[in-house]
């Protein structure tokens, strides 16, 4: 919780700024609409967090989301009864992709940046090979409900987000999370204490794949079927996690902060829209803010610097 404070403060400021321009945002409906929009990225960021904190990258999630949506549309093809089996299949595919990423990274000792880059190429190639170049078919109403509908006034996606968030926080407090964190900080020390390093890392990749599957289910309903639905999401997710103060390289940062980072990114988009910055320049502002935020994170808190090699004496 303590580690999530800076990003939560930034998030509160951004939300206040949004509310200032658009008072509707303060009403439950307005806020829920925002949360609904943010849910896919927040979930994806939570998945990416597990991978990053273990010291790895997952660049394949964007193309995995696209692949999942394309597969869902093609297999369901508007048929309502196919909804649940296909959702189950999507989840299995997500887990399987994560499994492959994890196994190749740990057992074959290929840097995860390369493994998941390869996976990105394979997934985008394979899916379009299979679908013949352009997405075909259609999603069912039942499928789309996850991204669009809700339970009373509360969107399904927000409920799913809450469940995912709670599960992620619980996982990080459980033995799995603690050992994952140590594996990211010092893999050798973890292994020599009996931690099954490969297994926890593979599990982290599978969680990321699972998160991508859930994100795909939400986005399929929310944004519709297209070949671009997941484009660039891997970078957004990594950016969100880093915005939350999680360190690339592993071993530091909280999952709550990572999810707050995703909310912050989404709040930023909303704010840019509200202030009428054209859709095009939005990227520019986003780029500047990401750099500034991460730079500020890197130079903040001088009284709690990170001990580097050789600094231990100085600090003691």
């Amino acid at each position, binding site marked *: 919780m303590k580690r999530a404070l800076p990003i939560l403060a930034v998030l509160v400021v951004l939300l206040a700024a949004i509310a200032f321009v658009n008072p509707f945002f303060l009403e439950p409906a307005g806020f829920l609409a925002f949360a609904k929009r943010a849910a896919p990225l927040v979930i994806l960021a939570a998945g990416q967090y597990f991978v990053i904190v273990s010291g790895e990258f997952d660049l394949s999630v964007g193309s995995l989301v696209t692949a999942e949506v394309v597969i869902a549309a093609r297999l369901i093809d508007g048929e309502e009864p196919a909804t649940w089996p296909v959702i189950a299949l999507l989840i299995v595919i997500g887990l399987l992709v994560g499994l492959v990423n994890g196994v190749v990274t740990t057992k074959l000792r*290929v840097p995860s940046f390369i493994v998941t880059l390869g996976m990105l190429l394979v997934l985008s190639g394979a899916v379009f090979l299979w679908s013949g170049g352009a997405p075909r078919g259609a999603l069912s109403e039942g499928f789309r409900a996850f991204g669009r509908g809700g339970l009373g006034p509360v969107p399904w996606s927000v409920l799913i987000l809450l469940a995912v968030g709670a599960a992620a926080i619980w996982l990080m407090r459980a033995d799995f999370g603690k050992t994952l964190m140590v594996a990211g900080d010092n893999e050798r020390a973890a292994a020599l204490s009996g931690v099954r390093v490969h297994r926890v890392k593979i599990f982290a990749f599978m969680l990321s794949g699972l998160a991508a599957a859930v994100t795909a289910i939400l986005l399929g309903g929310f944004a519709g079927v297209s070949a671009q639905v997941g484009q660039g999401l891997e970078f957004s997710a990594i950016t969100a996690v880093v915005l939350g103060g999680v360190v690339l390289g592993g071993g530091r940062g909280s999952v709550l902060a990572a999810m707050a980072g995703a909310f912050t990114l989404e709040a930023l988009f909303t704010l840019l829209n509200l202030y009428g910055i054209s859709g*095009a320049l939005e990227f520019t502002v986003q*780029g500047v803010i990401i750099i500034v935020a991460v730079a500020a994170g890197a130079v903040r808190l001088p009284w709690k610097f990170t001990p580097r090699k050789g600094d231990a004496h100085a600090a003691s």
Partner: protein
Amino acid sequence: MNGIPVAARLREPTQVVFLALLGLIALGWVLVALDGGQFLTMESVVGIQQRSAALGIVAVGQTLAILAGSLDLSVAYLISLTSLVAAEIMAGQDGNIVPAVAAVLALSALVGLVNGLVITRLRVHAFIATLGVALIIRGILDHLYDGPAGKVPESFQVLGYSRIGPVPVSALLWAGVAVVAWFLLSRTRLGYRIYAVGGNEEVARLSGIRTGRIVVLTHVLCSVCAGVAGLLLASRLGAGAPTVGTDGGYDLESIAAVVLGGTALAGGKGGVAGTVGGVLLLAVLDTIFNQLEVNSFVKDVVRGVVIVIAVAVYARRTKGRSA
């Protein structure tokens, strides 16, 4: 020559990638022959060289950044931007070629400077820093352009299409860039220091190397290479295009080519020769698929698998040596 046994030298990734390249050419020959065609015709060789040139130039630049322990995700958008800047300034006039080229080089050097300074001065991880700069350029592109713009004069298109004997001018340009980079890395102080900074930044710093400056310089060089690639693509298209860089996937693909060539993603180990091999390998792969008329999506799949397998092989060999 320098006292290392031949067997050990053959274990270096650079040798592996060229052996793999020869193997692939042989395999391609057989496959295409079985298919009833002829592999490595004049036409296909020229094709390989043409296809390789732009990626090859970017990858050489990327090699420098990666060797220094960094990486650059902004090259794809920078290529688009520089193609547009070049074509707009040229505006079809021969007389504008020199100012256009100068502007492109200056602009890309500036972008590299920004990348480098954000990484070293603001201490932002290279991944995030160059991603941020990529977004900034993307926003500018989207804001200013909807489609192709500017016009490249005929005389400048020589760069993209002419050839001297069997060798396209663009391939010569690539070779030139690669040779300069090789020379830089193996014969100059800057090159030695790039390896040192990428190998162990702390060691480099304690040896009195201004590590920040080295990282900034590699980013400037990397971006200039992207700018040159932008010029090449503009000359080939006859105009600038806002999507030419991203359509080619030059950001991730150049990184892939570098690691395929045996350069360690963590820096400090590898070189330009391997990268040239890596780029050629990808191009030959392309050519084989084209000649066999395989669906282009298969290409992506195979490409992804090949990259991962190659790096797995290098990882295995490194392990074998240290044990």
